[in-house]
């Protein structure tokens, strides 16, 4: 090569490398998209449309955000999103749903929330999308990979008072949340405290922790809202009554004043008053969780996936010192913990139904959910394959010295959505929680307060035309 041409070498090499890099990037992109392209559907059938997604602030939604450009490349659909904490999110969501203007196309919802949305027809049943071969490749999507209990939780046939697990499915679950007992194994071992399986044992254990370790024996959510009722408290109550007690009797009369419920509530409040934190009445979920994480409590009966926080050495004072057990499984031999799933649903008012479903399908695909769990701490996974993935097992296996996974698996055998389906669950839960406050502050006896709760609930249901 003559000296004249030597100056060409640089630019040529640069161009070559650039092309190589672009090819590589394209290939890598393609590799990430290749998984989705395996599905025998035309991802680009809704090309050019725009979707607005309503999301609540959650590890799962965090995981989706960086993947949105990928989705656009795959489908040609533009995504706008809105993220808010749970309370504010539902405020805005219901405002939009009720006006059916279609601001949000895809929404995050879940079993008990769906009950509010189904009756006025605000959300779409998803079966048609699932069974439409042009939109869903069931083989690739592996619908059976989802835990059956979670899918069942998102089904409802619309019948007030029953029918969860039957009928159309309204949302696809992206996580599983159930309720177990987390306790300070180090304190329990040190003072020879028995891991409680009955309510009496729990009160005793709380007493012992408070006496010996000087911290609150047990923490629990206590704000006068429905959110405080459905986790540890209701799971305990259900276990206490062998799953027999429901908020309603067969005639849909409120049943809070049932003698078993009264006894349980009395004992629970007494335990809280004796060994619980002084600000129980104002404890939100994060107050209770952070109290335990900071080492300020001996026990907490609440969401299982909080363990991800308890076991995080970077910020938890109790990492590695926690044990996990079922809630009150000794009362009747089995636990009856509640169940909740965050799930993706579709607004009926959306103008881009197919695009919305494509998004749901993509966001709940195995790979997307796996990434959410591995990279963004989305616990607990809603697909069995993710839980069984060795990398996930590696993270979760160490929690509680292995007791976490065992407890959760055992718990899921009997966990069900604890609430009875009806659209006024929120209101009813708020009424119920207020009655607990009346008892806690000793303004009313348990029997009276719960009878009032029943009466108030009946009034609301009648007003709503549900009775």
């Amino acid at each position, binding site marked *: 090569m003559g000296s004249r041409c030597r100056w060409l070498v640089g630019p040529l090499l640069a161009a070559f490398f650039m092309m190589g890099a672009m090819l590589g990037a394209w290939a890598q992109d393609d590799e990430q998209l290749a998984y989705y392209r395996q599905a025998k559907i035309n991802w680009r059938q809704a090309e050019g449309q725009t979707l607005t997604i309503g999301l609540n602030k959650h590890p799962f939604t965090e995981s989706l955000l960086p993947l949105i450009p990928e989705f656009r490349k795959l489908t040609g659909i533009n995504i706008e999103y809105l993220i808010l904490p749970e309370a504010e999110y539902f*405020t805005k969501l*219901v405002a939009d749903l*009720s006006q059916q203007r279609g601001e949000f196309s895809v929404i995050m919802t879940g079993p008990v929330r769906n009950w*509010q*949305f189904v*009756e*006025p027809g605000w959300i779409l049943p998803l079966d048609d999308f699932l069974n439409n071969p042009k939109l869903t490749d069931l083989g690739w999507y592996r619908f059976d990979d989802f835990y059956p209990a979670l899918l069942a939780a998102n089904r409802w046939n619309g019948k007030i008072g029953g029918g969860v697990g039957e009928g159309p499915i309204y949302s696809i679950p992206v996580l599983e949340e159930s309720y177990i007992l987390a306790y300070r194994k180090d304190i329990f071992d040190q003072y020879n405290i028995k891991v409680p399986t009955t309510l009496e044992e729990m009160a005793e254990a709380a007493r012992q922790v408070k006496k010996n370790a000087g911290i609150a024996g047990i923490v629990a959510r*206590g*704000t*006068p*809202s429905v959110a405080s009722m459905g986790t540890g408290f209701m799971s305990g109550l259900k276990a206490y009554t062998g799953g027999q007690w429901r908020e309603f009797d067969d005639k849909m009369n409120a049943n809070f004043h049932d003698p078993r419920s009264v006894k349980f509530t009395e004992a629970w409040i007494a335990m809280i008053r004796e060994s619980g*934190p*002084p*600000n*129980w*009445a*104002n404890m939100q979920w994060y107050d209770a969780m952070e*109290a335990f994480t*900071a080492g*300020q409590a001996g026990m907490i009966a609440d969401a299982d996936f909080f363990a991800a926080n308890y076991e995080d050495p970077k910020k938890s004072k109790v990492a590695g010192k926690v044990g996990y057990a079922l809630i009150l499984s000794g009362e009747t031999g089995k636990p009856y913990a509640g169940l909740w799933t965050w799930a993706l649903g579709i607004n009926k008012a959306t103008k881009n139904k197919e695009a919305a479903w494509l998004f749901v399908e993509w966001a709940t695909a195995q790979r997307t959910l796996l990434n959410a769990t591995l990279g963004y701490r989305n616990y607990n996974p809603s697909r069995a394959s993710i839980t069984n993935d060795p990398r996930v097992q590696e993270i979760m296996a160490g929690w509680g010295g292995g007791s976490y996974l065992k407890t959760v698996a055992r718990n899921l055998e009997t966990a069900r959505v604890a609430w009875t389906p009806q*659209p*006024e669950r*929120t*209101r009813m839960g*708020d009424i119920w929680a*207020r009655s607990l*406050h*009346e008892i*806690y*502050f000793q*303004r009313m006896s348990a029997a009276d307060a719960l009878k009032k709760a029943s009466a108030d609930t009946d009034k609301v249901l009648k007003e*709503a*035309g549900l009775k």
Partner: protein
Amino acid sequence: MTLQPRRHWRREEYLPYLLLAPALILLAGMVYPFALGLYYSFTSYWLQYPNRFRFVWFDNYLGLLEEPLFARALGFTLGFTLVAVVLQVGLGLAVALFLHARIPGRAVLRALMLLPLMMPPVITALMWKIMMASTNAGILNYILSFFGVDPVNWFGSMEGAIVSVLIIDTWGNLPFVSLILLGALQALPAEPYEAARVDGAGTVAMLRYVTLPLLSPFIVLAVMFRTMDSLRIFDVIYATTLGGPNDATTNLQIMAYQYSFQWYQMGKGMAQAIVLLLIVVMVSWLLMRLWNRAAESTS
């Protein structure tokens, strides 16, 4: 004064209305939403049951009389406002006088006084809630423990919650009152004081007979603003107790929020909001008369 020709006189007549026009137009757009809200208050609008929408006349309003929570919320609204306004205006006046005096470092203090106003109430309340944790885990109790005080159950008891909300609200709004009164103090004319000094008045007398009367329009202004805001206080309660514990900190606005945004009973929620509005209007009408009288007496 020259005689005005008739044309000129008519323009003068309309002038104030023209001056008011931009403001009125801007706010006129808000009349329709308000009217809609008012309309809803006479209906049984319940978001999830659109087919049960009926016009129910005054049922929502009359139903409030039977609702035990309403009486409690009303009592709390009025009681809290009274205590908060007296506290905040009283303290604000004291602070304004303090900052007006020639004490060293007052410029710095005055600048720092603005800090609480710069924090959004929702966030501040959240931070205060953390500071007010009920055990010594909270920084406030931790500091108090150095003075030998037992941990205060700030938010876990009904009384504690009310006091806590009062403290947070005062912290956020004291600067507002102080600033208005300080600005007013700085703008007061000099002659009355000179006259008083000539008459041999001491500090306290000057305060009582010169400063306070001269300040009275501004004090009433501060009372008016704080009253209207205290009656409707929301953000602080929303971020800390949401009306609890045991409905101890529920005021009418919180109650209306619960009915509208938590339970979706828009009709009832709007009725409660309108009742609150009527109360605010009545109270401020009274205060405005007071302000007019005070303003006239000093000019």
